[in-house]
């Protein structure tokens, strides 16, 4: 997969906004595992932003997004809502496929 510097910067800003919103939602919840995952997502995001770009940055953004998905899943679980579906995410963003799937 190829991504330009502008792509990476744009993805990084979007993820930063997403993680901020997740952090706000988590403030009123007592879910230690989700807090840990949010910290890891932020670490991965900062790693992407502080590196030299390229595949390493893309990988870090991918990690940040994976942690973010897990936190979203925890929040939905706590509220008794249906699990987050990566397929819906892919459809919304017109992505060809997603590299993960809930199957258990």
């Amino acid at each position, binding site marked *: 997969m190829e991504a330009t510097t502008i792509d990476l910067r744009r993805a990084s800003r979007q993820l930063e906004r997403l993680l901020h919103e997740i952090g706000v939602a988590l403030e009123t919840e007592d879910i230690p595992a989700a807090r840990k995952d949010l910290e890891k997502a932020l670490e991965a995001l900062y790693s992407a932003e502080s590196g030299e770009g390229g595949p390493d940055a893309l990988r870090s953004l991918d990690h940040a997004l994976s942690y973010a998905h*897990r936190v979203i899943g*925890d929040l939905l679980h706590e509220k008794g809502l249906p699990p987050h579906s990566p397929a819906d995410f892919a459809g919304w963003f017109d992505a060809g496929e997603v590299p993960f799937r809930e199957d258990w």
Partner: protein
Amino acid sequence: MIPLDRYPKEITLRDDTHAILRPMSSEDGDGLWNFLRQLPEIDKSHFHEDVDRREVVERWAKSLDYDAALPILAVQGNRVVGSATLYRNRTGWKQRVGIVRILIDSDFRHKGLGTAMIREIRHLGEKLALNYLLAEVIEEQQAAVRALERMGFERAVVYRNFINDRRGDLHNLVVLLQPMSGLEK
């Protein structure tokens, strides 16, 4: 102190049906028996006792000790559709290690129930201030292995031809670990 005030807890599965999560009680002998009967043979391999004997299952239900083994059941109506058990030692060098066993009714797989049960046990592990959760899974149970890995468990080791099923055939055992947040601070 075991944090049980969150139960009963209603969850929604991917097909928009609901299940209730709650600790197993002494009244659950029949439900557990019916649940265990329909499980594939391979899912029953890890039990130390013969779960095809009804009196064994009924004795479990009557001798619950949440400090040693906390079984969380997923139920729909009167039907048990999943179980997640957190085993702990009260003393000794593994007292901060929780052993995880999760079983899902064949009709309720691929609906997110297994993942929901992992989330639940992860939450309990955090609340009980454990250092690690440890899960042992037969390698053929790939959906379970993937779900555990997606929820943050990491493969610690794979033992080749290490365990036998109830027919005596050998299988690989995957051991997965998840560090709890208290350990990393």
